[in-house]
């Protein structure tokens, strides 16, 4: 089943093009990482999916037009925009009561159980909590909702390493069940690499890479070329080249691994390396740092 279906999404702010014809299909049960540099259009794309921004083009989320039916959509979609959006004046108990009162799919007992594992007091105001605790609270609220789609926009921005790690661990262990779909945006690629089933790179409002992690492993290869084979390897049209400790590393898209193996050591590039390779301006990609 398709969770998100976007065709030709376009959005401009004055003369700035935030989305420049985005096509995206997300199947149910996937964990999709939307990865791009700052200002690439990640948030605009997510806002469009959530019905917070109007876009040109076609967009269906869980079969709804998000702009026209935001409130209906939100019974089945959860999102954490970033951690700082919980109202600072609110008490933890009020947040629980309010979400319980307006959300048909909220399971308060579940949220309470999750909070019991933290040091958060029900009587505290949100302004009294640390940023990490606010994230835990927000996560507790969101995870207690029986939603079909969870959208996270830079959910761990400004958090220390321990909270970031436990955030994604909770998400995988307590929330993801194979039926739910998660779309998470970040520019901290290495942090989410291990949890994704699919990866989408976005740059300057365009999708520059969209593939599953399985396909990623067969499609992309990084060669640490033996010095005598570097020129030969370059002839195979790498998409990126860099020098490290006197060795040349080349990243290839869709080149047979057996062929590369003869030229040096081959491995699957990390998302970070591929991210850099795809995001670098064209001249930097072919430019050779001697």
């Amino acid at each position, binding site marked *: 089943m398709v969770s998100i279906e976007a065709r030709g999404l376009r959005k401009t702010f004055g003369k700035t093009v935030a989305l420049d014809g985005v096509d995206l299909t997300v199947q149910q049960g996937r964990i999709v990482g939307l990865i791009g540099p700052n200002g690439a259009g990640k948030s605009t794309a997510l806002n469009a999916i*959530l019905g917070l921004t109007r876009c040109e083009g076609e967009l269906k989320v869980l079969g709804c037009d998000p702009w026209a039916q935001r409130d209906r959509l*939100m019974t089945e979609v959860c*999102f954490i925009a970033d951690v700082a959006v919980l109202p600072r*004046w609110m*008490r933890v108990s009020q947040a629980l009561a309010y979400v319980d009162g*307006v959300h*048909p799919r*909220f399971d308060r007992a579940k949220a309470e159980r999750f909070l019991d594992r933290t040091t958060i007091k029900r009587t505290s105001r949100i302004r009294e909590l640390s940023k990490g605790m606010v994230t835990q609270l927000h996560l507790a609220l969101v995870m207690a909702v*029986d939603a079909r789609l969870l959208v996270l926009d830079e959910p761990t921005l400004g958090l220390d390493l321990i909270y970031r790690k436990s955030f994604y661990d909770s998400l995988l262990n307590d929330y993801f069940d194979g039926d739910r779909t998660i779309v998470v945006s970040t520019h901290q690629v290495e942090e989410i690499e291990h949890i994704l089933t699919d990866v989408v790179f976005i740059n300057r409002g365009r999708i520059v890479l969209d593939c599953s992690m399985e396909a990623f492993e067969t499609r992309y290869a990084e060669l640490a070329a033996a010095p005598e084979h570097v020129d030969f390897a370059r002839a195979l049209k790498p998409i990126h080249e860099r020098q490290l400790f006197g060795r040349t590393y080349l990243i290839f898209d869709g080149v047979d691994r057996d062929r590369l193996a003869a030229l040096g050591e081959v491995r699957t590039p990390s998302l970070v390396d591929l991210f850099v390779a795809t995001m670098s301006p064209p001249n930097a990609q072919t430019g050779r740092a001697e």
Partner: protein
Amino acid sequence: MSTLSDAAAMPAAPRKVRPFYWSLRRELWENRAVYLAPLAVAAVVLAGFLYGSSALPREVLAAAVPGAPRAALALHIPYAAAAGAPFVIGFLVVVFYCLGALHGERRDRTVLFWKSLPVSDLTTVLSKAAIPLVVQPLAILAIAVATQLLMLAWSAAVLLMNGVDPALLWSHLNLPLIWAMLPYGLVVNALWAAPLYAWLLLVSAWAKRTTFVWAVAPWLGLSLFELLAFHTHHVWSLLNDRLFGGYAEAFSVDGRGQVPIESLSQVDPARFLANPGLWGGLVFAAAGLAACVWLRRTRDPI
């Protein structure tokens, strides 16, 4: 097993929710001054009354002397203050409440949290508009009546201890009139001021900063322009009428504040309902709230 069957039952029968009710609760959690400020000022009125009540037996006896209307009228003052002071303070609070209602959530980006929940923009705007139009008038009614009842009970006790019959006081206080005029006045004022609240909410949904200036400046500018260009002051009169006309509408015989209402038979809802200003204002208010819904949908956090 139970979790499995629960999970299967969930999508079939989602729980009943009350988004409007909880949105109201949420507004009152955040803006406790909506009822606390009238309550505080009522407490001040009550304290003043208690402090001065030692003179009450003398005042009641003075009012009993025939041909002392002034003294009889003076007995009313605490009861008028118990209603009027919460009323005026409540109005001031609610003006600033409206100016912040759709602005604050954009400024602190909490609108992203509110919008992540299945509550429509219409529900949100209506719940915010209901605070000045319904919730606060009800709170003021309760506060004023409670204060007046405490005053009456205390007066009876003081009079009895001084050997004065409390019925003497009650004969001077027109309690049916007071308690009929209070809800009537609250309804009239809420309806009369509806366009004002809608305007303030509209500014709060639209302006990026300095909402108060945006709320006031256009009207002052228009008034000034009109005065200089045409030597008339229609805009100014309109503003004045909207700000203070509600009291005159509710509490005077002619609706212009000339002759105060002194008996129930003088209350004339039909005259108020026949006032085109009322209906024009309500149309303006409805249009303003519709614009608020649209703005809340389209405006980004600041």
